[in-house]
């Protein structure tokens, strides 16, 4: 089962960073020149709601909320793991202080 098929996926917070690295490997740059991740923090755990291209994430998040409406009460966070300069001429500014 791929990571995309496992969504939404709950993992330990201390494993989140390595999970992001795993996402980058499983979703290769040629197929995913842009790569977003959306998640919620629930205590010491992280619930990954969506990953992939922006429009894919939008659809995945809606599906996750349909499956479990209680998730709507939690704020979501997002990360952009990859962005092609040639697409957006977009640059990340981080960390934002």
């Amino acid at each position: 089962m791929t990571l995309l098929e496992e969504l939404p996926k709950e993992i330990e917070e201390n494993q989140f960073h390595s999970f992001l690295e795993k996402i980058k490997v499983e979703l290769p740059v040629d197929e995913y020149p842009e790569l977003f991740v959306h998640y919620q923090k629930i205590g010491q755990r992280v619930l990954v709601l969506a990953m992939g291209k922006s429009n894919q994430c939008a659809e995945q998040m809606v599906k996750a909320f349909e499956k479990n409406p209680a998730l709507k009460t939690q704020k979501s966070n997002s990360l952009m793991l990859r962005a092609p300069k040639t697409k957006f001429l977009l640059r990340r500014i981080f960390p934002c202080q």
Partner: protein
Amino acid sequence: MSVTLAMDENYPDICSDSITFLNTRTEDKVSLRMPKDVENGVYEIRSVTMDTGASATIIPEKFGERLGIEKPAAGQREDYVFSGVGGTSLCFYSPDAVAIFVSDGTEQLEKIIMPFFLISYAPSITAEKQLLAQSEYQPYTEEIIPFISPPFEYRDDYTVEIHSPIEKFIPTNRRLKLNVDVGKGMDYILIGRDWQEEFELTFTAETIIIKKKTGGEQKC
């Protein structure tokens, strides 16, 4: 379905029955009847931008607040810079998916997107003193353009001149994209590359002049 762009005084308006934005998590919803609400300045925007140039939809931050979308606190967010020929935008990525419904009264187009929210904007003519060129064709917009673009019928009605009293810039051919106002108290015209025909632009003054090909010129 089609929604036409029509010239109304200085600015083009989106003429359709309504556009609705829905935060899919909080279910906050804003519906705009076009063009009446836009002309009246409701919600502090005077037009809705369906932006193909950056291959992402950028919505004013304050408008996002009306959709229940809060800008993440400093240190908890990453900001993104979009640089295009029209200027430079600083944005944050939406934490929530937003559904957009565009209706012409009989048919409705629905799309769920992850927009960016505009924190600040600097038009290239004043901030950069020159046009920012996009380096190459952007091949990854194929999935997005069919949604972003279809509400707009192609209108080959406009030419643009932008003048600066300080410097004269080299005339260049550009394609015109019509985006006006981001709810930040400023109006601007983005010069995009998404229209099928290029127009010659001359940068010689701060005044932006839009000329209809078939008629007189109107200053912005």
